[in-house]
């Protein structure tokens, strides 16, 4: 109890204490921290800014020597115009949207159901299945792309949306995160509803899910970012340029002929834009999502 009072007084007088004593000591330190962060942020933003800058140059300026920031011919949106002429990038962006939205929704359905069962229901094989699920977190499953592709050939799922989507629905980490969250929800409400004769599925839908909104949002954001940016599997399973997602199309199809530096940078900027815009609007939620779901690995 005494400790609590002491703490209280410290908190109350915290500003004053800092003002007299250590604060002055800290000032040069804080300036140095600002300087370090400013330099680092500048370094970190430069590649992206340089890409944007190049994308608004003509190809002649982009490949002119010596390298200069400002283009001799002035800025132009020519590279972007050429992208929209061919129509590849908008099509790939559409494919990416279809695939990522489907992966996110289906992963949420599959994972919340499984996590609920692992958290609340006893069924034969529960322990073994959960142990296997957790164990698979530690294994880089990408290593089995070759047998997986051979299997997709047999299932005739190569060059289909389902072929891209289905293997991306397995998210053991998310099941772990959701189960841990469900475990913390008090069961009183569910018990009462059960006594009142509500079905198990209704309880899940109307009591458990609404209480889990924050964690579901976090999982959704995390899965969506992963699916939007996923490269290896969509790259392997699609050969048809009309079915490619944005990251795959950008890599697999060489745009235009000859020197295309400005064009490539315009493509990169366009491909980056959707998530960057989403991030600017939902910064807080996205950061919280990464922190909560990422840390769950512990």
């Amino acid at each position, binding site marked *: *109890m005494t400790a609590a009072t002491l*703490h209280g007084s*410290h*908190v109350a007088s915290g500003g004053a*204490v*800092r003002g007299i004593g*250590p604060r002055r*000591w*800290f000032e040069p330190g*804080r300036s140095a*921290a600002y300087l*370090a962060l400013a330099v680092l942020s500048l370094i*970190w933003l430069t*590649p992206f800014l340089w*890409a944007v800058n*190049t994308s608004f140059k003509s190809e002649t300026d982009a490949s002119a020597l010596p*390298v200069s920031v400002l283009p001799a011919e002035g800025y132009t949106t020519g590279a972007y115009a050429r992208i929209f002429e061919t129509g590849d990038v908008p099509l790939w962006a559409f494919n990416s949207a279809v695939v990522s939205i489907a992966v996110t929704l289906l992963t949420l*359905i*599959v*994972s919340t*159901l*499984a996590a609920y*069962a692992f958290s*609340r*229901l006893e069924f034969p094989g529960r322990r073994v*299945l959960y142990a*296997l699920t957790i164990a698979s977190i*530690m*294994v*880089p499953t*990408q*290593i*089995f*792309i*070759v*047998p*997986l*592709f*051979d299997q997709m050939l047999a299932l005739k799922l190569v060059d289909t949306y389902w072929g891209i989507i289905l293997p991306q*629905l*397995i998210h053991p980490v998310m099941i772990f995160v959701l189960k841990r969250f469900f475990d913390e929800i008090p*069961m009183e409400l569910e*018990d009462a509803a059960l006594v009142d004769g509500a079905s198990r599925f209704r309880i899940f839908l109307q009591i458990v899910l609404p209480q889990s909104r924050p964690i579901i949002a976090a999982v959704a954001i995390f899965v969506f970012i992963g699916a*939007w*940016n996923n*490269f*290896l599997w969509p790259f*392997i399973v699609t050969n048809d340029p009309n079915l490619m997602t*944005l990251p795959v199309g*950008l890599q697999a199809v060489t745009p235009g002929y000859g020197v295309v530096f400005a064009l*490539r*940078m315009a493509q*990169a900027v366009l*491909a980056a834009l959707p998530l960057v815009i989403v*991030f600017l609007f939902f910064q807080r939620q996205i*950061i919280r999502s*990464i*922190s*909560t779901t990422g*840390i769950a690995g512990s």
Partner: protein
Amino acid sequence: MTTAALGPNRTSRLAARRGRQRRWHRNRQPIGLLYVAPFAVLFAMFLVWPTIYGFYLSFTDRNLAGASAPSFVGLANYLEAFADQVVWRSMGNTVWFTVLTTIPLVILPLVVALLVNLNLRGQWFWRLAIFMPFLLASTVVSQIFTWLFNPDLGLINAALGSIGMTGPAWLQDPKTAMTAVVIATVWWTIGFNFLLFLAALQNIPAQIYEAASVDGASAWRQVFLITLPLIRRTVLLVVALQVLASIKVFDQIYQMTGGGPANSTRAILMYVYDTGFSNYRLGYASAISYIFFVIVVVLSLVQVRFFSRKADR
């Protein structure tokens, strides 16, 4: 006093809850199977089955180009893999890449998180600048860095030139290609580890620092004696996650160098890819996968034991 009062109360609540849970479970048992079924089916089809099927494939000469049915070849694929210089070169490259990325990707984001956690102004801007690259697809990152690392026209060599240095050919030079890929990787993924560290730092109660300040502990001493010990678990977690992420590197290397020049950046997953999809040798590719798989599983077990022992202390 409060904790003492809380203790038994909480345990009895937990016990009651567990009792309820048991009653609940006893009532309807197999219905849970319906709930896990979608996941279990996907898990079995697209994760467990490829693992088993890959094991079978690794003992065959299954070839995408050959029309004939695959035949059993015993240990031939494994014997070939053990004698294949490129397998070992790729393993070595993968380990080297993991070392080169893990060290900066643990230290750098930790330092940035410590700085940002000083409650400086402009939090959102620092977070934006450091974290944004993580939102980019590997293709975008690779295209931007291929452009930056361009020997003649790239910004990096132009900057080096302006201070009188001659930059290397980066991605075209076996001596610098790996460094270039590592730089791109650090730029790209620092944001994830940074957020994990920042979340851990923000969980440390401010009172601890205030008490330390009153006791006259300098900022450096506070970092080393208070902060780092308190977030030790997060540091270990980040190391583990980073090793796991780096060891399966594919995207940025494939896109920036294609494994070259002279195999200097070829990682193991890339060699599996090339063997399977460029040379169509699915059987041999599966054998290489399995060798790598066994190594990673052993490594994971060692890591788990090591970390659980550390956490116990």
